[in-house]
Every structure is written in structure tokens, then in C-alpha cells.
């Protein structure tokens, strides 16, 4: 054989060997390889509001209640519960036989300790704590929650899906609220393999063999959590192009948050399925700074309503018209039980002259409006750019100040005047059932200094929200929602700047993916 042919034969041999190795690696098994939207860094679900830690929580821990697809809280760890006639005592009995990952039984005392730990951190938990008189452990499986006054959101609070009340062993939950929990001992359907955790790269969860699922079929976040996989590997791949290639090549099974630009490409691939598991979707929040003139005046904030063109925002930020609503004027999300369009009329069609007039009445004198533009969040950047163009059309001077999100998240929390690093407007997003609740929608909260950055302040809004929390009649509650939203469009804590959907993508041999609002890993099987 000639030397050139020999070399070609050798190269071909090496390539074939690599191809064989690669094929062996991609072999099917009961391990789900999922690329998640962020790196799992924090293992304490009460320490942070980040979605990734919340999702970790649902693998490792369980909750007393969980929402069904009608957004009603259903018993999860709880077997039965009752409410006293005076609505001041809630009695909960746990399901029998539940154990933690360390083999210890789940007791009522664990639940009480977990609730006490959680209510310090969570906003809805804090509201529950305000009306709580005491907890009482009756026996190993039963505990009571005693209230100072009737409160209509006890079960909703215990079943909230974002930063929920995860149940931990008493010895862990008893730690002070200032101390970050670093253990991963829950009673959830999966156990974390701490020895395989590589921050920045991989987190591994294996089936918890002693988990006892409920007998009902899975429904949103409630029902039986039947695990059909042996192992779930969370991979963190920061580059979306690489993740896309890995999914198409079959190296991974599940892509939790494919960029919306990729959706059409993925839909065209017969080996891949695209599914929207969250019918509520994600809401853009356009937040004016209540401390910065002219937005310290309600007319200044109302002026922004006349600059809104949600479809234009969605075209820029999302692109694919199948993935957004052309218009949604509901503060508490379209498709939710609290949807109402009351008060949103000014946002239906831009009126630049009206916007300019309201701004002038609010004291605007031609100064530059500072918009914070996050360079590393393309969707936010697109929305800010559309807003900047609308402001300019209305004859408003705009100063777009770019920075990475980390910098903006610090800057937005500073109350400095504009000439000392302050700002007028920033944009963020929120989603899920919490957004749909007037009390859990943190960006709607208008408690002045205690509110989120932007510090909305409306003494008339807070009593309406409090009345909603106390009301137990569904029809009256909805009337209150309408009043709350109508008032919201007067004081304008923020502007709902559009609603879109973030589907997931997975290989077509993956079955049983639930439309649970957020990715969960029970009921999934790999064929």
C-alpha cells in the first residue's frame, strides 16, 4: 500500500473508532439528561427566589398542598384537613408511611418547624405569619394551625408553587433563618447525589425508592408523583447553540428553556417535540421608579400606558407569533382565574400626544429619561429598545444606559437621584401562578419603602389587596380583583408589557412530560 493510502486508512480507522465510542455513549437507558436554564448554585429553597432552586426543591422535597390545573390547592403530603366553624383553626393530618431521604419518618413536628422557617422568608408566608396565633403538634401525623383572625388564603399559601413551603426534617428547619441550608434531605420523589454534584456543570438526582406517591393521577403540580426514571442528570450548558446541537445529536434528552428563536427549527425536526407546559406564561414588567420625577406623579406613570404597543414589544423580544399574546391587559395574567381587562384601555393603541400631555402635566420639562438596558438579557434589551423608540416618538429625550444584568440588579435597588446613578425605568419578567395572585405578585405590591425596587406607593391599593386575602367567597373575590386592577391602572405600580410563553423541547422518545407550569421530572419515561 502506498504511504498516502496507509495514512488515509489510519485516519479512517481512528474516525470509525470515535464514531463507535460516540454511538455507545448515546445508548438509551433510564437516565434523563436535561439541560436546565441555569446552574444550580444554591440548595436552600428558602434562601433565594431563583427558579432553578425552586425546581430543585420540587425534586428533593414535597409540599403539604399543591396546585391542580385549575389552580386549586389540593392535598399533597396532607391526607385530610379540616377547618373549624369559626375558621380560626386548621387541622392537618399527614399521609402515613412518608419518610425523608435519611430514612427518618415525616412527622407533624417536621412540618411545623418547616413552616416556621419558611414564613420568615416568603412574602405570602409572612402574611400568614401575621395572622397566625400558634402551631400545635397533636401527634406524629397531626398538627394544627391556629389563627388570630379568619384568613382566606391559608390553603393557597401552603400550596403556592413558587418558593413554596417545602417540608424538611425538624433538625434542619430549626436552624436560624439567617443560616443557609446546605443539606439536601427532603421527602420528595428524587434524592440528590451530593457526591456527583459539580457546581457549574452537573447535578444528579436518583429515584427515591421509598417515596409513596398519591393514588390520584398527576394534575399540574398535584396528584401522584410516580417516578419512571432511575436518574435525572441536570446539565448546565451556557451556550444555547451547543445545547441545540447536543439535543439534535441525541446527546441530551431535554432542553428546558430553548431560546424562542430556535422553536421553529426544533418543531421542524421529527426527532424532537416542542411543548408549552405553562399556559400562564411569562409577563414583561415595565417598572417606573416612583422616586424619580416625572414618575413620582401618577400622571407621569399613566403617560407610559399611552406608549404601549404590546405586539411591537413581542415581535422584538419574542418574534414567533405562536408564542405570545397580541394583547393582554391583565395585571394578574391572561388565562388565569384572575384575568380581567378592566382599566387597560389606554394600552390598546399608542397615543403619543396624550402621553406627552400627561408627562407635561406631571412636571416633565425635557430632561432625559434614563432606561436601564441589560446587555446580557436579549429579550429585556429588545423590550427596552422598543420603549425607547416609543418615548422618542412622543418627543421625550431618552438616555439608554447599558450594563450587564448583575449590575442592573444592584443599580435598580438604589434610591439615588438621577444625576447620582439613579434611573427612571427598568424591565423585568415574572410568571406562574404567583403572578396571577394580587397578594403574591411581588411587582404589584405597592407598600412604598417595603415594595420591590421602583418602590410603588399607593395607600389605597393595599387595603383592597388585604380585603381580597380575607374574602372567602369566589364571586366577591373576583369583584375585588377587578377593583384592585382598576386601581392599579390609576396608580400604575408597573405596566404589563406583554405576555409570552416559553416552551420546552425534548427528544421524541421521551414520554409523559406533564403540563405542570414548570418542569417536573415525575411521570416522565424514556422509551
Amino acid at each position, binding site marked *: 500500500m502506498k504511504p498516502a493510502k496507509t495514512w488515509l486508512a489510519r485516519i479512517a480507522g481512528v*474516525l*470509525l*473508532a*470515535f*464514531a463507535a*465510542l*460516540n*454511538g455507545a*455513549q448515546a445508548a438509551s437507558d433510564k437516565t434523563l439528561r436535561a439541560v436546565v436554564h441555569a*446552574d444550580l*448554585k*444554591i*440548595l436552600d429553597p428558602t*434562601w*433565594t*427566589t*431563583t*427558579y432553578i432552586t425552586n425546581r430543585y426543591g420540587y425534586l428533593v422535597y414535597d409540599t403539604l398542598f399543591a396546585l391542580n390545573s385549575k389552580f386549586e390547592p389540593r392535598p399533597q403530603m396532607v391526607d385530610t384537613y379540616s377547618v373549624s366553624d369559626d375558621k380560626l383553626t386548621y387541622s392537618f393530618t399527614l399521609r402515613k408511611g412518608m419518610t425523608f431521604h435519611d430514612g427518618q419518618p415525616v412527622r407533624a413536628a417536621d412540618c411545623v418547624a418547616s413552616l416556621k422557617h419558611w414564613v420568615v*422568608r416568603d*412574602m405570602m408566608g409572612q402574611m400568614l405569619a401575621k395572622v397566625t396565633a400558634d402551631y400545635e403538634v397533636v401527634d406524629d401525623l397531626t398538627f394544627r394551625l391556629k389563627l388570630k383572625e379568619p384568613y382566606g388564603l391559608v390553603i393557597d399559601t401552603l400550596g403556592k408553587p*413558587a418558593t413554596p413551603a417545602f417540608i424538611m426534617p425538624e433538625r434542619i428547619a430549626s436552624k436560624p433563618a*439567617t*443560616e*443557609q441550608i*446546605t443539606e439536601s434531605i427532603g421527602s420528595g420523589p428524587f434524592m440528590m447525589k451530593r457526591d456527583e454534584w*459539580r*457546581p*457549574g*456543570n*452537573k447535578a444528579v438526582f436518583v429515584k427515591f425508592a421509598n417515596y409513596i406517591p398519591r393514588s390520584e393521577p398527576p394534575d399540574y403540580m398535584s396528584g401522584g408523583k410516580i417516578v419512571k426514571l432511575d436518574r435525572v442528570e441536570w*446539565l448546565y*450548558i*451556557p*451556550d444555547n*447553540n*451547543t*445545547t441545540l*446541537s*447536543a439535543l*439534535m*445529536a441525541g*446527546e441530551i434528552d431535554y432542553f428546558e428553556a430553548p431560546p424562542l428563536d430556535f422553536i421553529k427549527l426544533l418543531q421542524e425536526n421529527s426527532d424532537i417535540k416542542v411543548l408549552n407546559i405553562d399556559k400562564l406564561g411569562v409577563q414583561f414588567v415595565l417598572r417606573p421608579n416612583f422616586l424619580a420625577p416625572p414618575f413620582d406623579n401618577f400622571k407621569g406613570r399613566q403617560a407610559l400606558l399611552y406608549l404601549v404597543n404590546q405586539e411591537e414589544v413581542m415581535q422584538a423580544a419574542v418574534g414567533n407569533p405562536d408564542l405570545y399574546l397580541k394583547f393582554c391587559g391583565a395585571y394578574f395574567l391572561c388565562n388565569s382565574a384572575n384575568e380581567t381587562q378592566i382599566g387597560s384601555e389606554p394600552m390598546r393603541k399608542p397615543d403619543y400626544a396624550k402621553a406627552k400631555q400627561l408627562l407635561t402635566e406631571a412636571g416633565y420639562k425635557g430632561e432625559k429619561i434614563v432606561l436601564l438596558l441589560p446587555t*446580557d438579557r436579549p429579550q429585556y434589551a429588545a423590550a427596552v429598545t422598543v420603549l425607547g423608540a416609543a418615548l422618542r416618538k412622543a418627543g421625550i429625550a431618552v438616555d439608554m444606559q447599558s*450594563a*450587564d444584568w*448583575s*449590575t442592573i*440588579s*444592584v*443599580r435598580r*435597588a438604589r434610591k439615588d437621584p438621577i444625576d447620582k446613578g439613579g434611573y427612571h425605568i427598568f424591565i*423585568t*419578567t*415574572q410568571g406562574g401562578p*404567583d403572578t396571577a395572585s394580587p397578594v403574591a405578585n*411581588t*411587582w404589584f405590591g405597592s407598600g412604598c419603602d*417595603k415594595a*420591590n*425596587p421602583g418602590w410603588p406607593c399607593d395607600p389605597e391599593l393595599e387595603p383592597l389587596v388585604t380585603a381580597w386575602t380575607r374574602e372567602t367567597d369566589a364571586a366577591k373575590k373576583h369583584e375585588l380583583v377587578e377593583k384592585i386592577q382598576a386601581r392599579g391602572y390609576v396608580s400604575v405600580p408597573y405596566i404589563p408589557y406583554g405576555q409570552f410563553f416559553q416552551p420546552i423541547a425534548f427528544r421524541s422518545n421521551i414520554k409523559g412530560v406533564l403540563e405542570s407550569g414548570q418542569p417536573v421530572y415525575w411521570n416522565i419515561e424514556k422509551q
Partner: protein
Amino acid sequence: MLGFIIRRVLATIPVMLVVALVVFLLLHLSPGDPAAIIAGDNGTQEDIERIRATLGLDRPLVLQFFTWIFDLLQGDLGVSVYNKVKVTTLIAQRMQPTLSLAVFTMVFAVSLAVPIGILAAWKVGTWVDHAIMGFAVIAFSCPVFLIGYGLVFEFARKWKILPVQGFTPIEQGIGPFLSHLVLPALALGLVYMALLSRMTRSTMREVLGEDYIRTARAKGLDERAVLLRHALRNASVPIVTTIGLGIALLIGGVVVTESVFAIPGIGRLTIEAVTQRDYPVIQGVILVASMVYVLVNLAIDLAYGLLDPRIRY
């Protein structure tokens, strides 16, 4: 020689202290706050203040610096503000992928660049020389991520003979270990190979014009001996210098390559720590990288003595 090594090692101490001070000040004086990131987008101001206090970020900067230096002098680089894992553990976890990629890249680049550089110098002015130098210009001009995506498309998605991404430790089998390194090393190594081949060519050309080369040829030595024994040995000092300087290029390139190929190495650890403002991790990684750079330079200085008998310390 021993005295030289001791002097050089001791000289690294003030260098490292200056690096430590500059890194600390740059990080803490630049905008960004890990507490805000930990709290999450929906975290309240109260959450942020609580986390900041727990992390000790509300203490005076001078106090934070001296606490860090005090711990550093005891070999403690601290813990990540996010996952509470020791920085030394995080760096150790990331060392194998980065070292494997760096070594694989270096071996690939040097073993190809030096021969083709010699060939180009030997065949100077011919089509072989033009082809090699043309390839070098293209390889040097292409961004690493572009080469990376191109290789992934061709070899992983189209031909399916190599994996798209990831890293398999060597203890899980030599085959998967190597197969995961081929594409990243190729992407990263091409730039490095281009630089080194051009340097080899120009140095060799210079040496090949020397009188002693003419003498070697005149006394009837075969061309291979002239090139490798006489010319290459004398040209090797600048080549070795370029290899050493290329370590810096490699460190920069590793960041991009590790991101494109999802290799959990030091480069990605650095990027993630910077974007998340994980101060102890950034400080630790930069100190270790600086130390590596100083040691590589020391190794190169020592190599000069081996390659050129005239150089003695």
C-alpha cells in the same frame, strides 16, 4: 541554578500580593452585588440586605480585604458565596478538564506547527510555503467559536463521529476521554498552531541563512541533519519563547472553547464567577492562574539553559 530558582520563586510572592490587591479592589469597586443575584429577580430589598449581611459584604472594605489575606496566608481561598463549596475544591474539580484540554491542544499544535514551519522555511517561496502560510493566516484570523461551531456541525451533527459537547474524566475510559477532547483541541489549537508555525518559519529562515548552515551543507551532511540538528536547535529559543507566550493565548482561548464545547473547566468557572460576582471564586481563580503563568515563565527560562549552552544562571 538552584539559587536562580529560589530567587525567582521568592520574587513571585510580591507579584502575587500585588495581583491579590488589584483583583480585590477591582472586584469590590466595580458595580454588581452577589446578594442581589442570590435573592433572585423576585427577591425583595429585605432579602438582599439579609443576604448581604450574612455574607459579610456589609463590612468595611479594608476589613474584608485583611480577612481574605489572613485566610489566604493560611492556604484558605474561602468558599463560594453561592454554593458554600470551598474555592480550592471548585478549582480542583475544574482542573482536570482544563489541563487535559491545554495539554492536548499543546501537543497537537506544537507537533504539527513546528514541522510545517520547518517545511515552509525549507521550501520558502514555493507553493508549499505559500499554502502553509495561507492556511496559517486563515487559521489565525478565524475566531475560536466560529471554528468550534463549524467542527461541531461537520463532525458531530453531520457525520456523528464525535460528541458535540462535554468532558469525560480519564478514569471513565481513555476512549470517551479522548473523543471529547478532539474537537475542542482542534478548535483551540488551530490558532495556536498558526502562530507557532509562522514563528518557526521566520526563525528557521533566519538561521538557514547563517554561514554555519552553508558549511554543514558544504561538508556533505544530509538535509535532515542540517535542518533538525543544526538549524532547529539554534532556532529553538524564540520558538520556545513563543510556546510560553502562547500559554497566555491558551488561557484566553480556553474560556471560549470551554463555553462552546460545554467543558466544565477553569475558563467557564471564571466566566460564571465574574458574571455572578462570586468574589472568592474570582479571586482564587485569578491567583491560581497568575501563579501558573509565573511558573510557566520560570520553566521556559530554565529550558533556555538546556537548549542554548551559552545561557547559564
